[in-house]
């Protein structure tokens, strides 16, 4: 298995297959452009299944465009707990150039980054995420919103938070 861009996936087996031809070059990407099906998805914190280290706090459950049987997690910005390793490669699925990412804690490969998406994938419905995590390498936990009662949704995340993809990018700790 491998590769490339992803469709959003609902937590059940029902996959959203609405086609969605939007220009997803990263510079023009913004939160408003997210298709409504993405906006309603919950935000996950992803931990490494091997060393439990935090990999990413903006995870989204998704399925692979090229092979919809494959479930994985994706995110929209360089995650905090991983680093690119080795060289770019392509898989049988499509022409996307991808490169593995490894967990900074244990060094195990936990996903990949699409360094150069191919046209086919770009023209298909996708969530615009270029960082993917393998299902069997991560543990996901839904994040809660400020009330602590409801799951945090992607619609509530602002694009600007991407830069501050840190451990405490939301005010969980209150001075009270």
């Amino acid at each position: 298995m491998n590769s490339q861009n992803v469709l959003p996936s609902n937590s059940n087996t029902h996959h959203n297959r609405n086609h969605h031809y939007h220009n997803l070059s990263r510079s023009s990407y913004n939160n408003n452009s997210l298709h409504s099906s993405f906006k309603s998805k919950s935000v996950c914190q992803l931990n490494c299944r091997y060393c439990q280290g935090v990999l990413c706090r903006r995870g989204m459950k998704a399925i692979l465009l090229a092979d919809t049987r494959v479930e994985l997690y994706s995110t929209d910005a360089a995650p905090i707990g991983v680093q690119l390793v080795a060289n770019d490669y392509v898989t049988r699925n499509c022409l996307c150039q991808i490169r593995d990412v490894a967990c900074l804690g244990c060094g195990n490969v936990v996903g990949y980054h699409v360094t150069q998406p191919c046209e086919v994938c770009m023209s298909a419905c996708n969530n615009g995420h270029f960082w993917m995590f393998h299902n069997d390498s991560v543990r996901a936990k839904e994040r809660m919103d400020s009330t602590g009662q409801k799951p945090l949704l992607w619609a509530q995340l602002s694009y600007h938070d991407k830069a501050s993809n840190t451990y405490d990018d939301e005010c969980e700790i209150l001075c009270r």
Partner: protein
Amino acid sequence: MLPTIQLNAYNNTTATKYMDNNNMSLLPVEKLKYNIHAWSSHSASYHPKNIMVNKPQDQSSRWSSNSNNHMQYITIKLDKMSVVKTITFGKYHKVHVCNLKEFKVYGGLSPNNMIELLHSGLKNDCETETFTLKYKSNDIVFPCLYIKIVPLVAWGTNFNFSIWYVELKGHSQQNVVEKIYDDYISYRENEVIRLCLKHFRQRCYLDTFNSLQQLSNIKLEDQLLTDLHTNLVFNGDFDTTEEILYKASERNLFNDYIKECKCIPVWRRITATDKNGNSPYMRGGHQMCIDSELGKIYMFGGWDGSKNLNDFWEYDENLEEWTCLSPDTSKDGGPSPRSCHRIAFDSINKQIYILGYFIESPDPNGTNMENDFWKYDIPSHRWIKLSSNTAANGGPGVIYDHQMVIEPKSQMIYVFGGRTQAKNISEDSYSGLYSYSIKEDKWRLLRSDVNQPENTVQLKSRIGHSMLLNPETNELYIFAGKRYKDFSSERKKNYLSDFYIYRIDDDYVIEVSRNYTMQGGPDAGFTQRATMDIELGELYMLSGLLSDRNSNVDTVKNILWMYNIKKNKWTKIYQNVNFGSEYNNRISDKEPCTRFASQLVYDTKRKVQYLFGGNPGEMSDPCLRLNDFWELKLERPNNNEILRKAKFHIRKQKYKEICNTGDYLQALKFLQTNVSEVVNHNDENESKEFRELTQFLFHTQKSSNTNNNENIQGRNNISASVYKERTELYEFLLKYFPTSMKEPLENLVDLVPMS
């Protein structure tokens, strides 16, 4: 904490006593049991105890630090005090960014006092790697109870360090280790006393010195040097001092010092021809061998830029004359034209062996792939075809750029590496290590490239490397060359700078260095040419193609390196400063232009290297080959030069002491005659030092008077300042003597902790 006392200097008698431990190398090594003693940190479940089991399939079976700073370590405690000889690292079944690209291993009897045993790195692949550890220092074997592994760099920057599996091998048999321990402890005790003796004598506590010497019955130095010290420092008898040095030179005691001196390369172009005025044509990839006894060089084959050659030449060193033995050996029942073959000379039977060649264009039927093996009998001028198919006889296939050496006494030939050329064989098929018994006409495969004994140092095959045979120890020295990386899917070029010793007697591989470039040695390269002088214990290497770190293009440089076998030390002797055709033309008569694929042979009797031809690597003319012939001598200072220099320093001291007496007239006379005659006036520094000596003629007597009052304990009324000056001179003269004879190099005062 006091710094560790260096294990070196020792005197003759005791050194041989400890040498007995060498017998240990014949004992079989065993796997050593250990426990984890201490560690810097670990992350998640990657506890250090995981390194005790080898589970390459399990990502969690490893130690992983929780930081990648330089404070990380694991300390292992052995079950029993042992002599630790090898360390083996197991790895994950896939590449892993946490593998150690660089690490150090320390060992010792306590965790606080360890010495470095290894500095190396692991490849980022899934293959288990074994390294030899330092277990003796200048013939003193030392036992260890603790081993500390210190990661320095991981393959992925920013990642933590992981060690998957560690296995240690060595000796833990109680009787063996106890003996080694006792020897080691008594060696250290002796050294401490010798350091004290040196200190007391240096500081002129002579009563203490004498009583310590009597009580301990330990000698500070060889009697000859004690005599030298007595005469020079106590008696101020400068004539006898000179006499002792003269006798020392007659006993060749300065040889160690001479070897250590930087040698100066002297090139001479030889313009010899045969009786008809002809000389060998230009070529590269040819072969030469030398008969040092008779002073004859033989040259066969090569590539002239457009075709293979099979002319056969002999050069007479005494007459400086070439003779063409055969313009075409195939017409005389000998081998066909070829290049990239190897030849070896049997100095006892005066026979030359020829094996291998490069196949230009393999024909699909394989008809031009004869694995032939030839012998040329010099006395009868006869070619003998030993085999038409060495592979069928259990030997190597058609190989090129391999190495072949001969051990004349046992009549054994050793062939290692080279690329095997055959139908349906990939380009990466390297030939292993073979032996050929001349007497039995029998090939034997000693090591194949792919199949080697488990958890031992691997002897990876290669091409364009060097191999030399030490007939005294029956060891093969193998280094450098080229090999494609196994693991990576891309076929990256991989020039090597590693050094192995293969012990023929017990089929054992010692890794001397995995990367000598890192230790200040030559850059990784291939097609270098190497020779050896067993008497001096030195290897010489003329570099060929070097990999340039900054580009993909190979560079050709003429760099001559010397390697001291005993000290495991590389020294650069010579390098062409510039290269390029313009420069090459300008120097063509002074020194050889840059080249590779040349041939270098060494006359062990006359101590001269001979270089012929090669490929200048000229971009504009790729077919250009060379036919120049060079002699290279490495000049070092001789006994007379050393004696002269020593005398200069001795007489300088005598002169100063005459000045101290106030007899300036006599001092001046002594300076003008006795001192002047031993000065090398061509040496700018020495000449300046000599001229500056005149200042002592104008010293007022007062200062020397005040000094004279502080006479020192005991002997002959010497002033403290004179004693100090003479001691300094004595220590200066010591540099000419071998380490085994003299007082320890270290000083007791340097052991005082300053923290």
